[in-house]
């Protein structure tokens, strides 16, 4: 790609600068309703304001698996049509987005990958985000420590095939290797949904009433699982870990319904994503990977983790 911030030619043949004269950055996220991504969008917008760039955040209309990628494809083309200067892309589907990313690159628009990697990493200037594997690993490790290094574990997976979910499971399994006394007894998907997690966890609790902990691939499912555990009257006995530290999960953590979660700071991810894009546009040197730190949140730092 071209990292020098020139307008470049693009397929629509239009100049990239808008009326106010600032440069345009389009940020394409996965969805418009999850708190995680709304926070990310806010971060991106804030960075744009600070740095004097026009940041436009676009998301697919449907949050369901099926249409997400198709609609992101359309948004990529729209960015080309609008002749923006840089695209910050957080793909729903790592692999399926590659041709669309290729089209952006072919139109001489640089791409910054955000939060989730691209299937073909050569297409992006840089990746801003966190290592989900690492996040999963650290969360799992913290959970296992709390379990005292032994006991039984159930994994509640996200939507089958979702990259984030796969990575977090991989991280968890890596941690499992270090704790030979912890036994993984079951692993089932609840499609990132609170309602489904509630049913799945209830069902699994029938099979494994003595399970010691649930490792859930996001907070929504952790909250669903917490309700199942609560219904079984085992709150506090069974540990539950989530991911993302969204507001509901933080409340639940304070109530003691879930044990821990981890914070990937979506606001910072969005912010850093735009900063990286600006770096690219201004010709500054960019690293291959801007890592946003993750933090395990438990009852000790639940009130302060965002300030640190």
């Amino acid at each position, binding site marked *: 790609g071209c990292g020098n911030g020139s307008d470049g030619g693009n397929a629509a043949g239009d100049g990239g600068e808008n009326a106010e004269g600032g440069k345009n950055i389009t940020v394409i996220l996965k969805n418009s*309703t999850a708190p995680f991504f709304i*926070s990310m969008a806010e971060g991106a917008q804030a960075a744009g304001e600070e740095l004097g760039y026009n940041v436009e955040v676009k998301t697919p209309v449907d949050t369901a698996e099926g249409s997400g990628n198709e609609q992101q494809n359309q948004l990529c083309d729209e960015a080309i049509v609008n002749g923006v200067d840089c695209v910050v892309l957080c793909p729903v589907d790592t692999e399926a987005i590659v041709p669309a990313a290729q089209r952006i690159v072919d139109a001489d628009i640089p791409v910054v990958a955000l939060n989730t990697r691209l299937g073909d990493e050569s297409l992006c200037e840089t990746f801003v985000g966190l290592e989900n594997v690492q996040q999963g690993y650290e969360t799992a490790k913290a959970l296992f420590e709390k379990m005292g290094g032994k006991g039984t574990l159930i994994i509640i997976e996200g939507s*089958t095939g979702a990259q984030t979910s796969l990575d977090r499971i991989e991280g968890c399994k890596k941690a499992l290797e270090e704790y030979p006394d912890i036994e993984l007894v079951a692993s089932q998907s609840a499609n990132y949904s609170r309602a489904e997690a509630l*049913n799945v966890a*209830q069902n699994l609790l029938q*099979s494994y009433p003595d399970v010691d902990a649930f490792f859930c691939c996001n907070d929504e499912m952790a909250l669903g699982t917490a309700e199942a555990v609560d219904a079984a009257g085992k709150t506090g006995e069974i540990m539950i870990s989530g991911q993302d530290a969204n507001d509901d999960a933080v*409340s639940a953590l304070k109530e003691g319904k879930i044990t821990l979660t981890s914070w990937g700071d979506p606001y910072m991810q969005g912010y850093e994503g735009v900063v990286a894009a600006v770096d690219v546009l201004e010709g500054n040197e960019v690293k291959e990977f801007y890592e946003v730190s993750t933090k395990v949140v438990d009852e000790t730092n639940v009130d302060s983790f965002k300030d640190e």
Partner: protein
Amino acid sequence: MSVKKKNQIDLLSRFLILAVVCVGFALLRPEAFLSVDNITQVVFQQTPFTILMAFGMSLAIISGGIDISMSSTMVLSSYLSASYFQQGNYFMGLVVAFGVGLGFGLFNGVLISKVKIEPFIATFSVDFMALGLAYVVCNGEYVYGFSDGFRSIVNGYLIPGIPNVALVTFLVFAVLYFLTRRTIYGRTLYSLGHNKKATKLSGMHSDGVILGVYVTNGLLAALTGILYLARLNAADPSIRGTLTNDSIASALIGGIAFCGGTGSVVNTVIGSMIIMFIRNGMNIMGVSTNWQQAVVGFVILFAIVYERVLNNLMAKYAGKGNK
């Protein structure tokens, strides 16, 4: 064979499928599946939500239509009412929730009965509207944490041993069964499913009943939404999930024919139970979630073939009896 008898046999055959599913899992994992806890949990806590939504789908199908907007109406109404319930303003919560349900139900009903739009396309568009508005309203602000008082409408026990949500579902079932089987409303509903024109020309309130069906569905969606708030302790757009598909599947597996005019809410209950027990059993067995949908599909196909075989056997038997 009289209609009544044939319906009874159909129903019985669906019961048998349910029994086979249950016995199968019971043999495979008796200790987990057969526990009283597990069965009551599936029947009293998980199935009610599917059943309530599937009731609506069934009413629409019996009347010769379909309603795919219910799950989105449910999401929207639960969102809009959630904060009232959280603040303890139950009155406003109920007004808002049922108001939204009523509004969308009326809208559907008018589009279908007065404007004469096909039920699929009408409810398809309304589904877009309701879900779209839910996205707009929600805007990432989930509502979490309800008082124990509120949550007890699901988890509490007015009658020992039976959670309130099951009680509510049973009441809805009883009302709907009565409505569809014992009242003018029901008679018109079934008549409509078979022949709209003749129903209208007999001076029955056909438009009114169609309107009634979709309004009922809106209200059912609102009710389910409130129950979900209490069960999940949160308002969450992902609850929509696969409910539309599940409710169609419940009606189909339960034996409600899509051409309209046949089946009853009893079929719906059985259909929902079959699906939920399959889910439960497969979770318990630790089978990958990916297989669940395929298995539900196989059961649907199995059910029709099996029913055909049964019917043929019955006909043969009846034929012999006649000779």
